[in-house]
């Protein structure tokens, strides 16, 4: 079954060649029903090996290291090749991509999975690209940018001027490293996830949770007394209502990063699912006539995902900047609107 699924994955990720080996797959699936749901969930999930594609009967797979810790047995490090196709190695086996021990004891899985490998790869790409950009500035100063530097300069300036300055205000400079990192990290990983054979890193809720957690921590640690005064003594609210307002405000603090986490995860995962669903139509109908239509739709969604990739990076960065801006703001515009009563000046357009 697993080999069969792998054969299907490769066909699905190599859309351009899908028409060629369709006949063999159709023969192979004759006995087993094609399960698009299982295929899609497997495709967007994490795994212990990195399967690239299959030609005929040969699988092209990179086996990644498995690093597991068990209280009794200590650390075991071996290649995930030892676990391929349900094999058992050192008392460990894979069950639905989860590393479990045969005797049922607890396993702490620190493996370099597909997502971890992809994360390391993207970190490397980001380092190479941005050290090249930084070298350009070190060499040419404020002169005209050249090469890769001239591609990234407008984007960096956009993040600085349109995102950071407008949302955070005069104190924007100390948050630029985080905002730029998070923007390019999400953008690069979204794009790498769209490549054939790429891992679905930004569509993994653990990854988006860590990003959202960083945003929450930075917001909390850079907050001033206005921010907390607004939560624990909302201006213009009678004292009797405070027991209700404090939980409401506290919910707001945690919901903001939570919505960041869910949005990025949901958008990227949904994009992958929709693309794969369109491609699956060929195998569901087992009809070559469906292929042009579903490929056209699949391609359309894939191109749309290119836009979503940068849009989601922008939204995450912008909302992060807004949350930070709300925490470092000296004067709350909302104060008088909530009934503070001192009127003062109308809302400023930042």
């Amino acid at each position, binding site marked *: 079954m697993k080999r069969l699924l792998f054969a299907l994955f490769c066909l699905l990720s190599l859309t351009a060649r899908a028409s060629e080996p369709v006949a063999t797959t159709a023969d192979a699936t004759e006995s087993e029903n094609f399960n698009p749901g299982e295929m899609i969930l497997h495709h967007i999930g994490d795994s212990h090996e990195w399967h690239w594609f299959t030609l005929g009967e040969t699988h092209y797979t990179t086996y990644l290291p498995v690093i597991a810790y068990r209280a009794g047995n200590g650390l075991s490090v071996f290649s995930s090749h030892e676990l391929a196709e349900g094999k058992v190695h050192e008392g460990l086996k894979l069950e639905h991509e989860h590393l479990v021990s045969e005797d049922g004891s607890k396993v702490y899985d620190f493996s370099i999975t597909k997502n971890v490998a992809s994360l390391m790869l993207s970190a490397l790409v980001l380092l190479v690209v941005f050290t090249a950009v930084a070298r350009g500035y070190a060499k040419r100063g404020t002169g005209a940018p050249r090469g890769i530097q001239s591609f990234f300069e407008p984007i960096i300036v956009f993040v600085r001027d349109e995102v950071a300055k407008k949302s955070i205000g005069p104190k924007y400079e100390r948050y630029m490293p985080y905002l730029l990192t998070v923007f390019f990290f999400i953008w690069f990983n979204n794009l790498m996830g769209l490549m054939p054979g790429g891992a679905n890193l930004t569509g993994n809720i653990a990854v988006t949770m860590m990003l959202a957690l960083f945003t929450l921590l930075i917001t909390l640690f850079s907050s001033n007394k206005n921010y907390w005064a607004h939560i624990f003594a909302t201006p213009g609210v009678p004292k009797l209502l405070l027991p209700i307002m404090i939980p409401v405000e506290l*919910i707001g603090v*945690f*919901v903001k990063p939570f*919505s960041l986490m*869910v949005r990025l995860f949901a958008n990227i995962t949904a994009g992958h699912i929709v693309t794969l669903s369109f491609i699956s139509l060929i195998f569901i109908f087992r009809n070559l006539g469906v292929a042009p239509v579903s490929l056209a739709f699949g391609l359309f969604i894939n191109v749309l995902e290119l836009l979503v990739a940068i849009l989601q990076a922008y939204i995450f960065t*912008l909302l992060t900047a*807004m949350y930070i801006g709300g925490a470092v703001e000296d004067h709350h515009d909302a104060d008088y609107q909530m009934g503070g009563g001192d009127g003062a000046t109308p809302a400023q357009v930042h």
Partner: protein
Amino acid sequence: MASPAKPTDPNNNNPDRLRAVARYSGIGVQMAATIGLSTWAGYWLDKHFQTETPWFTLGLMLLGLFAALYNVIRAVSNGE
């Protein structure tokens, strides 16, 4: 004629419109997340304490609804 955005109009240029789209879609997701998260918390509490009537679910759902509306109203009336 059909081009609404003059480049001289500071409130109608592209980055600002994109910003507004991102901001308001953020408010929407936040509203959904507030209600969802508080309802889930109430559901979990009801399960944990094995209450006969799901008071936690009811109470926290209503609180979440109130918090969501309050935060939306505050966010959209916040100028910016």
